[in-house]
């Protein structure tokens, strides 16, 4: 593959790397797994890049490859210690004014999202990224109606997890 292509790929990915970090954040629960998944997504993005025609935004294209890798291709390594202790895996929060009750609530919310299944996480991820139902349904391969139905169920499920 030519150098120019490689260069433009790495540059674009470097610019949009937070999208990959965000996918990893939802689908993994420790730092090692985060790094592993990040690497696998990068590999898959690079493999798919020659077919990227630029008819969609690079970031939109990244969502699809990233989620596909997290949901279908990525294999959790056995050597890794599996833990549900999400608290132990937190990135530094930028120094900002934070309401401590809100922070506590957010922590509970992120923990609740971690308890969802892979497909539900994808829905939440796309919702958090402010994607409309048309894009959500196209990314997952389900109808828009089903995407809405599932989203409502996810909302209810989150409520149940938070208030058992």
């Amino acid at each position, binding site marked *: 593959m030519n150098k120019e292509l490689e260069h433009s790929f790495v540059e674009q990915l470097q610019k949009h790397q937070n999208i990959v970090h965000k996918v990893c954040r939802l689908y993994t629960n420790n730092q090692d797994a985060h790094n592993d998944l990040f690497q696998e997504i*990068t*590999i898959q993005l690079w493999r798919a890049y020659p077919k990227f025609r630029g008819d969609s935004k690079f970031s939109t294209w990244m969502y699809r490859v990233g989620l596909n890798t997290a949901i279908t291709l990525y294999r959790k390594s056995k050597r890794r210690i599996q833990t549900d202790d999400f608290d132990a895996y937190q990135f530094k929060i*930028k120094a900002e004014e934070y309401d401590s009750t809100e922070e506590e609530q957010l922590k509970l919310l992120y923990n609740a999202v971690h308890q969802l299944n892979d497909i539900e996480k994808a829905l939440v991820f796309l919702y958090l990224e402010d994607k409309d139902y048309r894009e959500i349904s196209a990314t997952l391969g389900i109808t828009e109606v089903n995407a809405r139905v599932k989203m409502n169920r996810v909302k209810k499920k989150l409520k149940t997890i938070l208030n058992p």
Partner: protein
Amino acid sequence: MDELELLKKDWQRDTIEYPELTYDEIYNMSHAKSSSIVKWIFYISLIEFGIGLLLILLNPKIEGQIEFPKWIEILSYATFPVIAVFVYLFYKNYKNITTTDSVRKLIKTILKTRRTVKNYVLFNLVMAGIFSCVGLYIGYVTTEGGAEKFNASAHFAEYATLGIVIVLITAAIIAFFYGIYYLLYGILLKRLNRNYKELKKLEV
């Protein structure tokens, strides 16, 4: 406020400081070796393909010790075009796997790939079963002094015992290999099957 709305507000505020990867780090990562499920399926199918081919290549050597009937020989040559079809299908399936498809389509393609591997394994097992049955029968009869001598002295009980032993040994061989196959793919595709079921459930 809706829980998800609160989460969205935080998510979009982008308050998390992720490690900023450099150009070189991303470059190296994109050239690293993948450990994706597709790669594993590909490796396993290659091994299975190799074993199948090995069985056929070893066949003439066994033939030297045991004289197989003509139809078995013809059958073993007839397997070559079938294997060629499988090679083509393997190639076509892997070509079709693309990460830019929807999640549902991607899972479907991967599961189709696995089905081809499964059919190939079944084909090999059936062939192994036929060769094993015939080989065991001829092997036993030869040690008893040849087919004519065995047929002349054998009664129903001998035929039945031989038949049962051959079937049991063949079944054990097939079960062993199928067990390994089942276990391997069961573990590998657990997550994929679960996610596919989850998406299918939405259609009901």
